[in-house]
């Protein structure tokens, strides 16, 4: 295990835990920001600079800014986050789903041992041009499905915002 990975992995997990446990809204969002930055550092380590920079510019630079905007608009610094639902069944459901997710991840890590070995990267790996040609040649269907999904979300958002279209 290399030190670089360990440092940023601990940073990501720690910040993630802080994000879900913090009672203050804005520090919680900043925890998420730290997670994104740690993840992008890990992507850099995996020779994927484009993904790393997208992680920062899209997730941290656009989506999280939107989240922060909503926090600033609706919550004042004095308020603390509280669960609106003190419902027991929700909590049991949440615990169950969490355990299920951990189990899934545990099953996933079983195969990791076979993947970890030194590998020579193909020429131009992680280069923007290479990723672009992969998108439009080999994975065109996946790409288009993702864009249709985004379009659906866009239409839904417009429908919600404008009742009388």
């Amino acid at each position, binding site marked *: 295990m290399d030190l670089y990975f360990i440092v940023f992995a601990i940073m990501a997990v720690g910040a993630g835990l802080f994000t879900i446990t913090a009672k203050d809204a*804005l*520090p919680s969002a*900043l925890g998420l*920001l730290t997670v994104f930055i740690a993840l992008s550092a890990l992507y850099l380590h995996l020779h994927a*600079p*484009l993904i790393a*920079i*997208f992680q*920062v*510019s899209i997730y*941290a*630079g*656009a989506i999280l*800014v*939107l989240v*922060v*905007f909503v926090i*600033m*608009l609706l919550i*004042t*610094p004095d308020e603390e986050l509280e669960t609106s639902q003190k419902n027991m069944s929700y909590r049991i459901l949440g615990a169950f789903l969490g355990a299920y997710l951990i189990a899934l991840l545990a099953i996933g890590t079983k195969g990791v041992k076979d993947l970890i070995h030194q590998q020579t990267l193909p020429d131009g790996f992680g*280069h*923007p041009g290479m990723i672009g040609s992969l998108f439009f040649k080999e994975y065109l269907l996946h790409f288009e499905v993702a864009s249709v999904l985004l379009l659906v979300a866009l239409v839904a958002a417009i429908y919600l915002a404008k009742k009388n279209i």
Partner: protein
Amino acid sequence: MVDWQIDLIKVIFIWVWALLIAVVMTWVERRASAMMQDRLGPNRAGPFGLLQPLADGIKLFTKEDIIPEKARKILFVLGPPLFALPAFSAYAVVPFGDKIVLGGKEIILQVSDVNIGFLYVLALGAIGVYGMVIGGWASNSKYSILGGLRATAQLISYEVPMGLALLTIVLLYGTFSLREMVLLQQGTFLGFLPNWGIFKQPLGFIIFLVAAYAEANRVPFDLPECESELVTGYHTEYGSMRLGLYLFGEYVNLGTLAAITVCLFFGGWSLPYVDMSKFLGPVSYGIASFMVFFLKQAFFLFLFVWVRWTVPRFRYDQLMGLGWKALIPLGLVNLFVTALLVQLTI
């Protein structure tokens, strides 16, 4: 010299250069505003008041550092550095000259020529807003929180047209590297114009410039500060050097934006019509290319000041209207037309 020493020198050079620009800009801003308003401006400290920034610095450092009692202490302290650091870091990918040959070794005048250079600048520009938001949130003041809120909304709105304008540039040059973009702008366009981005993308340039002013929170888009309504917005409660860091970060930001503008639209370090490398020695060519780059950057820095003291501030709804109803549709049309033209000409 070993490679890491060269890198270190380049990092230190660019750091000092960024600082120096910010320092001189505070003087230029005050003198130029005075000139435009038929006043004298600060002229007591040193010749032409050139030592005024130094005096300001000493003043800011020696002032009492006050943290409001009900402020969130940790966040309050964290805000200014989080604002200033991304601004400095963005300089790392700016090509501030061509190359210089020292002792038979060719040195590229850029800290790091990464192939995603300009996405990196965009990403850091977006990160800078967290400094303002944290400052606004932590100050425990209504003015501050409104300033922070405005900063986020403004950033999201103007990130989109800026991205659209930059996409057309990527389409045009087919690369993300700022250095390659500059190299592609040499020669002439249509026989008589310099082969600069502005002549190929005039609309893209205007959209980019407007969005850049909004991202840097400069008048006419300085709504997060907006003295007439919000005192000074997100940094109302700040004083001493913490305030200094906010102001400084803003000027460093301006320097970065001016440098990017020069790289994308005005041919970077190259002179139009003249190839300097032909009749200058390897060392003097390096210095000359840096000087050319600096002069172009200085013009855009002055433009920031010029606009600030000429154009009145927008109202907030006008700002949002301009972003969403004018710049984004224009940007989309521009992108579509450019894509079509690029496709037809290849």
